[in-house]
């Protein structure tokens, strides 16, 4: 059961949009971070059920974030979904290798992300 989410994205607009969609979908406990390093730290302190991270971040990228979380936590919790501005087959493989549970594109309605979260349950 996903209750607490950590959203890592350097784009404030995207963060805002995603938060709104997540709120509407019934997720209210959302922590955000703007860089990879901050994200990794927040994951340790906040202990979220799901981490949503953008690929392109200042500092370490989303895949590295994912890999570090997995390194620290091991498999299972938290779930990690990697989101990206442009879908790319190479990135999908990279996400899988870094231990992400899913990988999806950013769209204006963020339907792929919501679907991916639904699938995790």
């Amino acid at each position: 059961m996903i209750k607490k989410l950590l959203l890592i994205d350097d784009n404030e607009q995207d963060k805002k949009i995603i938060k709104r969609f997540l709120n509407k979908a019934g997720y209210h406990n959302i922590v955000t971070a703007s860089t990879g390093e901050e994200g990794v730290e927040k994951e340790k302190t906040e202990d979220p059920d799901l981490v949503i991270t953008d690929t392109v971040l200042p500092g370490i990228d989303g895949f590295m974030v994912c890999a570090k979380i997995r390194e620290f936590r091991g498999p299972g919790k938290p779930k990690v979904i990697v989101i990206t501005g442009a879908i790319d087959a190479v990135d999908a493989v990279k996400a899988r290798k870094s231990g992400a549970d899913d990988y999806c594109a950013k769209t204006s309605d963020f339907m792929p992300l919501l679907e991916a979260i639904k699938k995790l349950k």
Partner: protein
Amino acid sequence: MAKLQKRIKARSITIKFILWFLVISLVPLIIATYISYSSSCKLLEEAVSKSLLAVADNKANQVEAFLREKEEGIETLSRTPEIINAIELFDVAYDKGGVESEEYKMAYEKFGPLLAYYQRRFGYDDVYLIRSYGDVVFSVNKKDALHSIYIYEPYKDSQLSRLFIEVSMSPEPKISDFEYSPRTKEGAIYIAAPVFKEDRVIGAVVAQMGNKGIFEVVRDYKGLGRTGEIVLASKFGETISFITPLRFDPDAAFKRRIKFGSPEGLAEQKAIQGEKGSGISVDYRGKEVLAVWRYLPSFRWAMVAKMDTDEVYDSAGKLRNTLFVISLGLLALVVIMAVIIANSIANPIRELTKVSGVIANGDLSARARIKSKDEIGELAQSFNQMTDSLLEAKASVEQKKAELEVQKRLLEKANKELDSFVYTASHDLRAPLRGIVAFANFLEEDYKDQLNKEGQDFVKEIKEGAKRMNDLIDDLLKLSHISRIQNPYEDVNMNELLDAVVKRLDFDIKEINADLKIQKNIPIIRCDRIKMTEVFLNLINNAIKFSSKNNKESPRVAVDYAEENEFHKFSVKDNGIGIDPQYHEQIFGLFKRLHTQEEYEGTGAGLHIVKRIIDDHNGEIWVESEPGKGAAFYFTIPKDIEKKKKKIGEILVEEGLITEENLKDALKKQEKDKA
């Protein structure tokens, strides 16, 4: 064997020359030899015939004269009173008691020496006196054989008895045919003349003669060469017998016979039948001879004067041999000349070939060393000039190539930069756009009630503008993706590919109720699967889009395939609004639109993307259309797509500006530089 063939091939000009020279010289040589040989043969034949004829005439006269003389001798004898007395005396004495009687002895003493004298004097073998009863009453040599010629051997049925009968009924002297005596193994003729006393035949005087005298006449071979001779033959029953010894068969007289119809002694056979003639014939030995033949009616003999054709043509043969030797010499000379001439042509050509081989292998410094001033020398000179120019051209091509390579690399770099710029730009453009769309949506969803109608319309316009921008960015991304990503060529099942395309367009097809027909059984085609899908997606989508606005007919779209010699040809046809020919080139440009956004949606990148993909495949694309008559898009994909993917270097090689070697070296160097 193969080596020899190679050698012959290598020397084919020489061989050809020899053959031609031989043909040219052999034909007249053979004709000349043949003509001179055959005419000399004819001349010789005529000359020998003439001389044979002369000899034959001469001999015939001699034989005739010889026998006439003998005949006249007998005729003279028959008229001498002594002979008349002798016959009367012997007649009486023979009856008195035969040869042993006193009377006969007295008569013999009286006339014997005289008759013997006549016999010797005229050259007879024997002289007989025959009384009218047909008894031989006197013989110089055969005193013991005095019998009746009718009853007793050896006279019974002999030439002598026949001759006596003939002579006793005619006043003329007669000559018998030859008669062969098995006892003496010799042949003889008889010459008889009747003996008259007061117009009454009281008997006959007969001379017997062998063939020696006649042989003496004909044995003279003067003017008859080594093989010529005069042959005399007489009819003996159903055969012809020679009556004198022959030059090549001394025992032939009366022993050698020729049967009528036999292949030998043809001239004798003809002559004995009364013919007179001359020509090539076959003699008693079966040898070919040139012969002159005639019949001697006085004695019923055949006379043949003949000479072996070998001897006749001997001098012609010598001439022929001489001609043959001269011909051989000439031919040898011709062959030598042919070889010399051929070599004078072939050697420079070989030299040129060798040098051009060296040049073909890339050594442009090689030059033909031919000093002659003739056409071949000119050829070598212009060949060398050509090589010089080639060297210059190569140098300038190398330079051009290097320049081109630099330009190409710059161009590639610029292209790459442009592509990555487009990629980044469109990527970065997306994020704010996402915001615009999302927030416009939020505004619409969350604050709809607070906006009046105009405000709602503005939100709608924001959303529409954003959507259009999104589409443009999508296409730009796709375009940069197509330029950046080179998928490997694979064997693609086009039927499956088209099925997938149709599935993706299913919604649109159903929405406008389009009649989409796709050809079945298209073969496997080697191409970029992902990009080819893009091509059909765009073309079919366009076709559906434009045919949907046909007000008269329901929308129809057809995808067809045709296999051509070197490429696959596809077509996508619709019955839509069509395209004015003046725009046929333009429509493949980026973001070219012929219609407003309201009429037909889309960014105008689709056909440009399609063209770039087809260009990438080295194919061609074109449209055939007129306004109101629908449009047909055609494109081709080469069958040997990998080969057709030419690089600039390969094109240079194909055009002959550089060699394969140059290209390989250049590529190696390029790789080294890269490393």
